[in-house]
């Protein structure tokens, strides 16, 4: 796990990485914060399954619509970006 990920809340980062690795059929150690989902071989269906896995794991609702690629409500540009967004949603959920 890279240093950038360690700056994140480790259990959330670990959980997101496990979910993405599961979908990409790779080992979690191969998922880097700077990786894009495309780098990891995930297509749009894989992305939708990741979002579902994240929602189920953390009990949050992710504002995601597959028709708006820029995703103004949820940055999916890299694994690190996704982790940050999930951390925000989890914090908001707890507040």
């Amino acid at each position, binding site marked *: 796990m890279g240093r950038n990920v360690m700056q994140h809340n480790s259990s959330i980062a670990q959980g997101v990485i496990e979910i993405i690795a599961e979908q990409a059929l790779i080992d979690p150690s191969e998922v880097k914060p700077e990786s894009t989902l495309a780098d990891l071989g995930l297509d749009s*269906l894989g992305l*939708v399954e990741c979002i*579902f896995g994240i929602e189920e794991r953390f009990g949050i*609702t992710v504002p995601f*619509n*597959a028709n708006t690629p820029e995703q103004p409500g949820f940055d999916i540009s890299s694994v690190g970006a996704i982790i940050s967004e999930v951390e925000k949603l989890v914090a908001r959920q707890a507040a």
Partner: protein
Amino acid sequence: MRRVVITGAGTLNPLGHDVASTLTAMRAGHCAIDRLTCRDVERLTVQIGAEIRGFAPEQHFERNRLSLLDRATQIALVSARQAMAQSGLEITEDLGLRAGVVMGTAGGGNTTVDDNYRAVYAEGKNRVHPFVVPRLMHNAATSHVAMEYGLRGPSYTISTACASANHAIGQAMQVIRAGQADVMLTGGAEAMLCFGGIKAWEGLRVMSTDTCRPFSRDRSGMVQGEGGAVFVLEEYEHARARGAEILAELAGFAMTSDACDIVLPDLDGPVRAMRAALADAGIAPDMVGYVNAHGTATAANDRIEAQALGAVMGAHLAGLPVSSTKSMHGHLIGGTSAVELLACLMALREGVIAPTANFSEPCPDCPIDAVPNTAREARVEVAMSNAFAFGGLNAVTLLRRV
């Protein structure tokens, strides 16, 4: 080859309870998408849809018969009655043997399934109504239409997701062409605007929470609706011999499979379907005067459909009106291409092209004339109707003025 014509049409959909009111709404660019009213709507992320409002089933069916009729079957029967009335057909003993039904539906008795799962799972009941199975089965609408008129020839239901009605219409046409029947009732009906029906679609993350904006740069996904339409198809000489009014000729049909992805559209399948439908009808691309697009308003469908139209139509696409009436009646899933065929009939018979409603701005990915927001007058000899389903199953019909 035996030619097939349309001699009756009927519908029940969010824009109207019959063909005339539906076409009036399409001409006005009216959008029937509104807040959903189903049970537990507050638990849905997607809370908009196009419902049929003001339909009172008890005004159309005996109370004891209603217990056998899922909402989708009610839609099919009401539509079939209008179509049969318009056709003026009298089903004699002999003609009944030469007549059948092919209906399309994706969800069948989805509302019945939803209601009864709720009863046994959520409410802990251990008993369901005795007619759950005959209500929910996908062939219920086909069988009830057949029973209502004594249509005793080839009859079955087709379920190809969002292309179900076009596949059904095409198959009914083939039955007549093949000489297995002289009259076929066909179309599609869908009613899954219930909690489970919407919740399932919601999960796919392709639904808009705003409205349906096909081919528009700011499109945000599909919006579900409910409804359907039924047509009377008749062998041409049979219709002429009895002096029937012919609404249009069903001149061409083709179907292809992408064999590519279970939800994402592919370019090749739609292109081959449109080309094969044109070849089937013996019609050159530049004779097509209107295309009713599949136009779901998802990012992927509209981009690929526009590309496919470009490949098939070439330079002719520049002057070709292509609209998606889903912007007005919503995506009626298995019933949608039946209601969309009404827009094709309007183009041929009334010279009015239904618009694409809710259109904000052109999209560089969709270089077509989407007839934004306002209906247009045009003389149309041939109209094409596209349906490209999840699972990559494509069906295209072509109507020609007679």
